[in-house]
């Protein structure tokens, strides 16, 4: 962390950048939020990078990179994919951003810890191997691996796909397919079981829009649900269409663009595993049209904006395996 702060100070001092986008503590010490730092003092005071710094900073650059001056951003491997995808969609002005790649060994997911029945958490510490959880009822320790959410447990890549400079060693892409295990599990259920599963999950949704607001692919200037000309009436109370179909439509809009950063699930206050919907699209795209990782580069055509003459027919859905 100190290396990052030192380098940020240098870049601020030599005028390369005039501000830094990084992480700082929120209300609780384990509740990390993104922050903009404008001086060495601010960096010393509140800049943080540890095993709790999960937020993907790339989306903030849509607005930030269009402001005057150049900024420095620290991106984890995951975040670089989102960054690339946003570059592809002309959402970030590359020339206004200086990217420093920082390594990531997986981020602690507080909800995963809470799911283990641990209550009254005051703070969380990690030495990279073991996590110590301070609670009102005393300290608990557990291996870090047990504190990871599904997103980090099945990490897709520790490799940075874009940066100006890198701190530490670059990692490898992980192609073991582990991230599709839960999707496969659902696929192997009967439709009735799947329906029950999703109804159970989606009925928890309170339409707080946290998933939409955090998602780097959901970067519309104006969401289609807020567009009076889209044919969707806006107010949820008068129109259950939006209520019912929000996640289906949102996931379709990010299909082929979602880099699988997992932010949607991480921020969901109702703990709905939203990333499984996106991963289903990713898995289908890989199976139907060949492996594709959104954000791997800033040039390739998104699968839904492309076609081949011999693509499979929609009927493949009926003939494909899985329980009827």
């Amino acid at each position, binding site marked *: 962390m100190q290396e990052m702060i030192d380098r940020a100070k240098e870049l601020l001092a030599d005028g390369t950048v005039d501000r830094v986008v990084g992480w700082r503590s929120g209300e609780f010490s384990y509740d990390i939020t993104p922050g903009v730092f404008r001086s060495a003092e601010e960096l010393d005071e509140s800049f943080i990078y540890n095993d709790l710094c999960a937020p993907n900073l790339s989306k903030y650059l849509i607005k930030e990179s269009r402001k005057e001056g150049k900024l420095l951003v620290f991106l984890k491997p995951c975040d670089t994919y989102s960054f690339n995808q946003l570059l*592809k*969609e*002309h959402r970030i002005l590359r020339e206004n951003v200086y990217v420093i790649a920082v390594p990531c060994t997986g981020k602690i997911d507080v909800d995963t810890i809470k799911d283990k029945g641990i209550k009254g958490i005051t703070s969380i510490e990690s030495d990279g191997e073991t996590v110590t959880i301070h609670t009102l009822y005393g300290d608990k320790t557990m291996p870090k691996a047990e504190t990871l959410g599904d997103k980090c447990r099945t990490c897709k890549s520790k490799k940075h796909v874009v940066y100006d400079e890198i701190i530490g060693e670059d990692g490898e892409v992980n192609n073991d397919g582990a991230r599709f295990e839960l999707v496969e599990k659902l696929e192997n259920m009967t439709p009735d079981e799947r329906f029950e599963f999703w109804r159970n999950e989606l009925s928890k949704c309170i339409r707080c829009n946290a998933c939409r607001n955090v998602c780097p692919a959901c970067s519309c200037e104006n969401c289609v649900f807020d567009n009076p*000309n*889209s044919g969707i009436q806006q107010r949820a109370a008068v129109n259950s269409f939006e209520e019912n179909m929000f996640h289906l439509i949102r996931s379709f809009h*990010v299909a082929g663009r979602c880099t699988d950063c997992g932010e949607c699930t991480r921020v969901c206050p109702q703990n709905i595993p939203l990333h499984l919907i996106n991963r289903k699209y990713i898995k289908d795209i890989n199976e139907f049209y060949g492996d594709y990782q959104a954000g791997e580069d800033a040039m390739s055509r998104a699968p839904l*904006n*492309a076609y081949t003459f011999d693509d499979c027919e929609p009927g493949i859905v009926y003939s494909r395996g899985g329980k009827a």
Partner: protein
Amino acid sequence: MHRIGVFVCHCGTNIAATVDVKAVAEEMGRQPNVVFAADYPYMCSEAGQNLVQDTIREQRLTGVVVCSCSPRMHEATFRKAAAKAGLNPYMVEIANIREQCSWIHKDKVSGTEKAMILARAAVAKVQLNAPLTPGTSPVTKRALVIGGGIAGIQTALDIADAGFDVDIVEKQPTIGGKMTQIDKTFPTLDCASCILTPKMVDCAQNEKIHIYAFSEVESVSGFVGNFSVKIRKKARFVDASKCTGCGECVEKCPMKKVPNEFNMGLDNRKAIYIPFAQAVPKVATIDPNYCLMLKNGKCGMCSKVCGANAIDYKQQDEIIEEKYGAIVAATGYNPINIDKFDEFAYHQSPDVITSLELERLMNAAGPSNGTLVRPSYLNKQDDHNAHPKKIVFVQCVGSRSTCSEKGAKEYCSKICCMYTAKHAMLIRDKYPDTEVYVFYIDVRTPGKLFDEFYRRAVEQYGVHYIKGMVGKVAPKADGTLDVQASDLISNEQLHINADLVVLATSIEPDKTARSLATMLTASMDTNDFFTEAHPKLRPVESPTAGVFLSGVCQGPKDIPETVTQAGAAAAKVIGLLAKDKLVGNPCIAHSDELMCNGCSSCEKVCPYGAISYEDKEFRQPDRTVAIRRVASVNPAVCQGCGACTVACPSGAMDLYGFSNNQIMAEVDAICR
């Protein structure tokens, strides 16, 4: 507030027999904003249209729904009628209660119910219709013809004749195309050059026609009426404005061993050359692959002898940009490559030739000066074996075959039956001692005087037509060819000891057509022939507006047909260029720039390249100014498919006439 009028047509009993039209009209009268609803026996009749017009005026209607036959039938009729009464024609919607209701349902109760639902959907939609005005765009009054064969020449001459400027781009050093290589034409047997070369000269002399020879189209942008084309003028290393075509340089060029493509490689030309005597433009061209000066910097003979001082070894390709209102593709054809047809021994024996090679061998300007000799005796024409005594013609080489791995084509090349009959007849006429055999699958000779022509070859000239295919041609030690074939009618295997075998090879579109089609966003079929806008009703137009088709690039055809089509394409071009303004289809996409992310999704799915982006300044709520990239649609290019509207996640992109709101309203009305 809308004032909608609903008109329910009986269509005699076509609708009224299965749909209770009165009930539909009554029900529609109860719909919100519907101020008038009536039924009428024949809405499309003069009286029916008058009813619509009178009601529009009397009731001050803002929208009209006609419940009748398919909109594909009478939408235009009712739109016109509405326009006459002062209502925007796009405020008319049709509910299809005939083809999609009364004609397919027998039960009157369910038929009526469905008619009401369809009418309700149309009423819901029309309330969201917006008055539309078609956009207009100017027309550049100049045409481009790509390809300078007989198709391109005829098209250019006809366009120029109507008073419009026209440019021909030809990739070879001279215009004229394949027809220049042909000796005689069927069914009249007149000499091809005699009818073609005057047309070439006409092109050169016509002040409305500009020829870019030895040039290729580099890129095409723009749209109907407003194309912008970059043309690459390839370096000839000869200044065309100075060269007089005297041929002195060709005479003196020491590099003599260049295969002469004009004579199908049967003889050689020089490194500096004029393809043939009547070339247009008659300008020499240096072949950089063989020129000693360009390759090694040694020689310079042509430069020394050129009195006009036209040789320029440093000449570079030149890019010219020109604007056009219309583009005609006339890229023509080539015989297919028969390398993979080993059975005919084309590469084993010089005496197995293609029909186009035979044309050259029979042409007075060809390598044998018009005397038919076996190619193996080209250099010893006086030998008593030089003249072939027995000739076998093989038809359908690579045509009507599914051996695509050999480069064969499934289609019939159409011209081979006739030119083979022509060859056989000419040979029998000039050399009556020669035996001529023709192996065929079918003889296809429809066309004016065509079958008579073929019958004459058989009956008058004694050509042996044998139904059956040649299985193998084997060169023998004595230089003759053993042709093994089957006679399907007498059901026997034949061996013919031939001196010459002529292969009627299939023809295929020129290789440049594919990349040109991409540039023009014109579509092609699986064989790389350009597709027509409609195979029967719009045969000389491509689906891309402003792009027209002339000659074999659209499909195999002979010279008379090519000239016919060339004239037809010219007529279409003239029709377009005669307009001062083009009126577009107003049902096109448009982007709400306040919603647009500038993400380029829409651009990626647009088949017409109608979408472009610009950085625009927007005032933010906090009064600062932000620059955002936003999409805009070129209304003259957009055809209104709507692919972009679905690619757009925010719904910024929408389609006039079929907007998100309108379709949602229809869905709601149907599902209510």
